[in-house]
């Protein structure tokens, strides 16, 4: 089996691995690099649990080939908190009781982060649209929407 090199920046750290050609980024992250924060909920692109941020864009790691990420900058939910301090989105998810089983949470946070990076003061409609590719089966979405809106407000207060 042909092994190919991949190299990218993951949550600020340089990563280099040899992987089987055709390996998805999801498998490379979870099985080779050991970052299990992206979850494999469907491997079809229909649940969003594997969402990561590649070069500033939200992507599904289950449908992305790891080899196609050479040189990319990748962010996952496990890399959001810094020195034990939670990212405002993580804080907001906690405070809003927006997690139940937690399986969709890392993907939701990725989708929300990209939204807030581009749209610091989103409307409810913006949030709904941003989360629309991510399935949650426990919460009924409302607490998650509220968490994202709260995080946006706390961000803008901090910026002010």
């Amino acid at each position, binding site marked *: 089996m042909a092994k190919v090199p991949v190299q990218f920046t993951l949550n600020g750290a340089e990563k280099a691995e040899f992987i089987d050609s*055709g390996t998805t980024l999801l498998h490379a992250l979870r099985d080779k690099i050991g970052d299990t924060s992206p979850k494999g909920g469907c491997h079809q692109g229909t649940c969003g649990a594997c969402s990561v941020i590649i070069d500033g864009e939200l*992507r599904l790691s289950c*449908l*992305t080939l790891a080899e196609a990420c050479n040189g990319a900058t990748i962010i996952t939910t496990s890399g959001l908190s810094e020195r034990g301090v939670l990212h405002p989105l993580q804080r907001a998810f906690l405070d809003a009781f927006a997690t139940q089983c937690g399986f969709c949470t890392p993907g939701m946070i990725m*989708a929300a982060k990209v939204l807030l990076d581009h749209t610091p003061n989103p409307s409810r409609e913006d949030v709904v649209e941003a989360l629309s590719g991510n399935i949650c089966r426990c919460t009924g979405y409302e607490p998650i929407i509220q968490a994202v809106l709260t995080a946006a407000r706390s961000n803008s207060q901090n910026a002010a």
Partner: protein
Amino acid sequence: MALALHTFPTVKDAGAALKAGGTRYIGGGTLVVRAVNEGDVSISGFVRSADPALSVIRISGGTVRIGASVTMAAIARHADLAPLAHAARAVGGPAIRNMASVGGNLFAPTPYGDFTVALLALDATVSTDDGELPIETFLAKRESNHAIVTAVGFTLPKEGGFRFLKVSRVKPKGVSVLSIATVLEQAPDGTVSSARIALGCMADRPIRASAAEKALIGRKLTADGIAPALAVARDGTSPPTDPIASAWYRNEVLPVHLGRLLLA
């Protein structure tokens, strides 16, 4: 056989590689990688081209050329393509739109391929490494197509001339019950002088509603004016029954939604 990804600098080289058995061209990966993940062992090689031209949107004098690798997200945020943004945003959720390419959308089986419905209404031209084809011709034979799609081209409709509607059960992101795109031109008095209507999910691939198009010519966009077009909207349709909706339902609501789009 183990999988492998082969990247070629030119479309021509990629095209040559595609002649090998078991290979598939990979655009955004939303169709092909999914198929492999789901156990399609007939695919053993991904082929792609790194030709930068595939990712370019070129607009000059009302003529648009969109490289096949351009994503739905790139179309949706392109200022000069604002009239089409709505149709591009109809595809998937935000992550899918950052991956799904216009080239891939041409191959998306029903009930997917909403943007292709828009392209059909725009009477687009599909460019491949083997030449150019009208989109209708391309779609009719897309399963047997072995050429690599390199771009789609079309003329930007006049302001307000393009309309698009996707009907889905789940909001804001859901698979189509059906989708409709129209490109209409109206005389100063409001009568329709030219009409192209494309339908998604009303057959196994996007189709034109030719009878309805004809019935609109010379009519005004009023309830009475469009009535003859709605009456023949189902002519030539053969919608699928799938988990989203039955053929019966799609046929029943097509005139309703077409009417609402035309009167909007």
